[in-house]
């Protein structure tokens, strides 16, 4: 788990809840995602409003589709364009350009 996410958990939740949140987040990390897992975790933290119940609600949404969580967070944040793929402390000064991801790798066209 990235440091900004750990810091945000510590900052937003009481000790007992923070442990619970970390457990949920570790679960998400172990299940994986079709998006960046860090994006999902930041989105849940942003949407949770420091409430463990909300974390559980958005965990359920993640299980259905992680993209829905990220999409909802982006929408709620006013569509800043970062889609929660950058650390929290960089979101305020976000310029609007995201680095390119792995999907830009050249295809080898070999069947898998």
């Amino acid at each position, binding site marked *: 788990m990235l440091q900004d996410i750990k810091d945000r958990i510590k900052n937003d939740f009481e000790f007992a809840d923070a442990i619970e949140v970390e457990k949920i987040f570790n679960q998400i990390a172990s299940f994986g995602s079709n998006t960046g897992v860090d994006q999902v975790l930041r989105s849940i933290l942003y949407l949770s409003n420091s409430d463990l119940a909300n974390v559980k609600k958005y965990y359920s949404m993640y299980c259905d589709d992680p993209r829905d969580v990220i999409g909802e967070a982006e929408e709620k944040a006013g569509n800043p364009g970062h*889609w929660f793929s950058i650390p929290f402390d960089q979101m305020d000064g976000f310029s609007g350009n995201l680095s390119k*991801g792995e999907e830009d790798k050249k295809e080898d066209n070999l069947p898998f």
Partner: protein
Amino acid sequence: MFRLIKNGEELIFYGRFENTNPNDYTFYQWNCRLGTGERDPFIDVEAKPKMEPLVFAYRLILDIFNPEGYGAEFRSETAAAAHSSFDLIGFIPVFGDVTDFANAGLYILEGEFKEAGISVICAVLPLVGDFLFKGTRLYKKASHIKQSLEGDDYYKVKSIYRRPCTIGFTSGGIPEFSPYLLSSHFLPLNFNDCDGPEHLIERVKKVAEIGKGQLGFKEEQMDLLTTFLMPDADDNTKLLEFLNNQNDQHIYRFLKVWDASYKRLNQNIQSSSEIFGIQKPFLEFITAPERLDDHLEAFAKYPDLFKSWKLATDLGFDEAKKVELFADLIRLAPDEELVEAFAGQPELVRAWEVLSSTSIRTSTYWLGRISRWQDVGLNFTFVQHGTKVKVFREADEVAEIDDELQYFKINFNGLGGDIYCPLDRTVTVIGKFHSNVPKQGTWYLLPDLKLFKMGNNPGGINLLNIPVGFTWEKNRIWLTEATQRGDLIRIISDPADNHTIWKNGINTGNWADRTWTGKEIYELENVLDYHFDPSISAYIPNQ
């Protein structure tokens, strides 16, 4: 022993200081043309830098004068030769007296005062001293040389090859001027010590001649080859017996394959035994009379096949199975990537064994795919089932290959059931993730089964997978490219179910309330001009 050899245009001095064990020695080589020297040039050749003259001389002197080092024997050999020479010259009147004094000086340096005294007496009383004392000394020396010649410690001269040289000393201290000085052949020094049936040694000579004459092997290759062929090891005898029954053409091909492996594997003497240990049975196999010329060409061209041989041996394949495998690999050989995979993936070789009664056994397409699966650790196993091959992950049957009908099927329980992938087309899968639910959503195909690719994947699945910087725009582009490619757009969540399209299952008509799958469906139906075909659970273009 110290020698001077001429190797082509290069004039090379070399010296070998032997310990009591002839296999334990230090070897020096000085190349006059290059002006560089090497210590133990055949050991760790890649790791050892060439030595500059001063460094080389320093190391050489250190070895010669190290009291516990290899130089001790060299010093004693050289001194013994000098004493013998001085004694003989000492018989010449007047001039001989000078050499007697020199001989005495040398003895004093060695601490041999009695011998020094005898030499002084010989100088002072020329005739009497020479015949009385030197005669006794030379007789003793001759007797010692005779014993040495009969004993095991004498440096054996029964070699079949020797390096050409102009001067040398044997360990008996006698200057060595033998017929082999004119020889143009090369074999490693320790080959002098080889013992073996004469006909096999003759065969080694023949093989070496073909290597040098027809294949133009250089000295280093010849050294490696002859070390490889030395008939004193048990496992070599079989190979040599085999080679003994081959004609020149077979030997030529054997050498061609051997040379390919030598160059490809870039072996030096130190590690050659390990590699050759692998290769020997393989070389016996490939040079067998029933092998075809093009087989040998393939082996010479793709030395990775050597490793496949070892792998098959390690996996316990019997000889017949190995022959089958290699017959197939020869057919597959133009696909270098696949040959390399067979050299390093035991799972692939095992899979081949299971599939060897199907047409897949020589299918570069399927073997390549299986190789890529195993390469990323999917660890599938395969079971033949009639004309089909069932793919298992542990005890769970996850997929099926039908080479006859040209499809690949992934077992699935979501909408539409199993996912059929025609081999000429990519199947793009959209739908809900359903984390931790087996065979239901994209989670099963993506982080769980991992049997997918993002992008063009004919015969397989294309899934959205953006682990860094996911955005709707990237998702949209991915879907658009799939339609442009003509992929089959398979949906695994029911589009008639409101929960698939709308968050909370309530149709608000707002874009923001759509699920991500709902957004993809909107894009397909309203932007890309597709419609849902429930009979195949897929979106197809409106034509």
